[in-house]
């Protein structure tokens, strides 16, 4: 049984590979950093379409839409006891851009480079941080991006102490690693909890940060214990070995729901699951085939069984909750219609095709289900299961036929998904911009790409939303993506917990509000 002052969560945290906010880009890490680091601004947990200040007390946007000035709250301290100044903010931006790790593009898309970063993101004084972008983006877009993990503020002093000398090379022109190696497992933040340890595939252990400027956390410790299996999490929850089970699957959800002393909570997440039909495959490249595929998914049965409680059928590329998201669901299982389309495509007897599938649920189950429904229309689907890295390697190399993937928004803004699904400037194998559209070898009609680009600069939120709504409809009808459902995050927890709530994204799954009876 877990101690009264400690929260233990069972959670599949095997995706964590680093805790450095300048490098981390994984969902579980987002949750950990969200609870242990602070950012200038954060999503309003009560209304995710709004952004509120976290370290920043207030901010202004210049009239030309290029300069953002943030005023910091006074008297802020890092967990180390050092004061939080605009210097630290500037340093955090600088190192993220210069390290140029996976999430760096979030910042560099605003025109930041290693060369200009010290100019574009700088401390005007100890309490003022000035940020300059290259185009007059919609402010909602910029601010939404700044709520991402990569914008977390690190303790410059502590990090610099641990920085390692490196020899500059062609790829990396700086003589320091900006503490990256140390920060992979180390901690230099100011959030409600400080990270004590992270052991890969085992646990993350956090302890209350006495210097936290906000509301003090209720519990002394929070432990994320790595548990992959839903049934294991449920068992441990029932036996009181954990307080929260984070990866429950439908069957276990039902069981937990029925158990006295247990409770469930859920929140839709920005992650959508889709089949990606590689346009390099001549059969899949036929528009009729792509459409037939959309008719060959038994959405209803999947929704009622395999993803019951953990997802909702969703067919458009913007997840519910993001600006402009619509809920059109024109497709349902219709074998006759699909056969008709296949016949039109000249494939009345179907064809054989492979699908790369990650070895986890509910993906495998869905794949198997689709395998059966495709067979009804004569399409023979061979499932190639693999580990995440393996299937992803193929997907990135565009050597798959069909890939069943999931896409979580990089930041809480419609542009993240719009870009990846509709922008593909160079469809050759050498293409630089490796969006999902590129990976799927989809030569996106210019009309769609342009709409997505235009929306980015639309300052009026309502108009911006309208553009996305229209775009979604078109993509739904024409794209070689069969979007199946949007993830709902569910957690089963012991009724002893008070104030436990899942946020709309992983970086809003806060634990500091939780208390125990």
């Amino acid at each position, binding site marked *: 049984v877990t101690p009264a002052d400690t929260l233990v969560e069972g959670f599949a945290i095997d995706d964590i590979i680093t805790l450095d906010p300048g490098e981390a880009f994984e969902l579980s890490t987002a949750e950990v950093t969200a609870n242990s680091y602070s950012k200038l601004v954060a999503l309003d947990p009560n209304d995710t379409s709004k952004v509120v200040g976290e370290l920043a007390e207030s901010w202004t946007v210049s009239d030309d839409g290029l300069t953002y000035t943030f005023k910091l709250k006074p008297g802020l301290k890092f967990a180390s006891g050092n004061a939080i100044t605009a210097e630290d903010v500037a340093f955090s931006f600088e190192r993220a851009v210069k390290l140029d790790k996976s999430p760096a593009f979030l910042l560099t898309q605003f025109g930041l480079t290693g060369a200009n970063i010290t100019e574009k993101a700088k401390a005007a004084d100890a309490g003022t941080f000035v940020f300059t972008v290259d185009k007059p983006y919609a402010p909602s877009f910029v601010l939404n991006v700044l709520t991402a993990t990569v914008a977390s503020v690190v303790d410059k002093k502590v990090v610099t102490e641990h920085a390692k000398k490196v020899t500059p090379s062609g790829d990396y022109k700086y003589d320091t690693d900006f503490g990256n190696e140390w920060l992979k497992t180390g901690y230099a933040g100011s959030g409600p909890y400080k990270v004590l340890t992270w052991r890969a595939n085992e646990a993350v252990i956090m302890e209350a940060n006495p210097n936290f400027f906000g509301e003090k956390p209720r519990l002394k410790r929070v432990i994320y214990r790595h548990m992959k*299996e*839903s*049934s294991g999490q*449920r*068992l441990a929850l029932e036996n009181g070995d954990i307080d929260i089970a984070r990866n429950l*699957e439908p*069957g*276990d959800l039902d*069981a937990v729901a029925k158990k006295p002393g247990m409770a469930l909570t859920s929140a839709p997440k920005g992650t959508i699951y889709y089949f990606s039909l590689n346009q390099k495959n001549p059969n899949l490249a036929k528009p009729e085939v792509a459409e037939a595929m959309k008719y060959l998914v*038994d959405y*209803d*049965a*999947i929704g*009622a*069984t*395999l993803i019951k409680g953990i997802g909702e059928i969703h067919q458009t590329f913007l997840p519910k909750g993001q600006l402009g998201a619509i809920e059109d669901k024109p497709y349902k299982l219709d074998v006759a219609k699909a056969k008709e389309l296949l016949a039109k495509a000249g494939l009345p007897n179907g064809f054989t095709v492979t699908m790369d599938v990650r*070895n986890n*649920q509910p993906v*495998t*189950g869905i*794949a*198997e*289900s689709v*395998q*059966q429904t495709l*067979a009804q229309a004569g399409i023979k689907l*061979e*499932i*190639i*299961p*693999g*580990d995440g890295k*393996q299937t992803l390697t193929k997907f990135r190399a565009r050597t798959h036929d069909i890939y069943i993937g999931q896409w979580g928004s990089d930041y809480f803004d419609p542009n993240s998904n719009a870009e990846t699904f509709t922008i593909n400037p160079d469809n050759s194998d050498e293409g630089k911009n490796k969006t999902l559209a590129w990976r799927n070898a989809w030569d996106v009609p210019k009309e769609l790409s342009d709409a997505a680009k235009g929306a980015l600069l639309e300052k009026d939120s309502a108009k911006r939303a309208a553009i996305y709504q229209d775009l979604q409809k078109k993509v739904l009808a024409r794209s070689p993506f069969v979007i199946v459902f949007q993830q709902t995050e569910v957690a089963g927890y012991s009724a002893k917990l008070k104030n436990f709530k899942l946020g709309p994204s992983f970086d809003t799954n806060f634990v500091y509000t939780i208390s125990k009876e």
Partner: protein
Amino acid sequence: MSTTDTPLKPYSREWLLSDRPASRGQARLGRAYVIWRRFSENRLALIGLGILILLLVIAALADVLAPYNPVRGDLRNARLLPPGTAGYLLGTDDQGRDILSRLIHGSRLTLLVVVLVAIIAAPIGLVVGTVSGYAGGWVDAVLMRITDIFLAFPKLVLALALVAALGPGIENAILAIAVTSWPPYARIARAETMTFRNSEFISAVRLMGASPLRIILRHVMPLCMSSLIVRVTLDMAGIILTAAGLGFLGLGAQPPLPEWGAMIASGRRFILDQWWVAAMPGAAILIVSLGFNLLGDGLRDALDPKEAGQ
């Protein structure tokens, strides 16, 4: 041929057991009969043989015996039904497929795995072992070093690595298991060859001018066969378990193939409430590998050269 003896009725018990067989065929059959008698005295071994014959029959007649299609289920209406539900003797799995039908069809995969591994690994091991043991010297040293290297690998880890490298799939799983299972056969064959190498009956053959190749092929190998057969039979159980382990880790047969280990893996998620999904294939594995073990045990007793002398 002694004319005084009343000729025995061919294929009768006495004919088979005759001390003075009149033809090659009779001698061979007689020997087989003696082995069979010794084998069949062992009730457990007979049970093992029965299990395996049953397995063969089931595999051969899978299409007739299985009440449902093993890969197509009824996700909407028949998901996770408990055993005994009308029409589903052993229940259904999470895709609404009939577990019994899957088990029946899965027997083919199980057989495929063991047979293929056996015909890949055993001959390799036999050749390497006999050549190494008979030749001695540096040939022996080199071959045994290679064998040692493969032996020093953690077997399952090596198989895992190989499957990871070749891509998951039943063919690759078979290959991986074969690659990891020949070294023990080589060791056995070598050890046995070494005991024969200096024996007088091999010296006698050498004195007839037989070439080393002939000696290995016609004189040494047949002697290693019986212990190899025993070993292989006993190993079949291990092979089944390894294949199931690979399947369990998601590296063996792919969905929707009804491979038993993979079935356990997919049933694992339901072990708390729908125990049968994982329990049934596990029981099937247990029974079949028990069958192989019983058979192997019986064969060992029957083929043991020490007892054959009496």
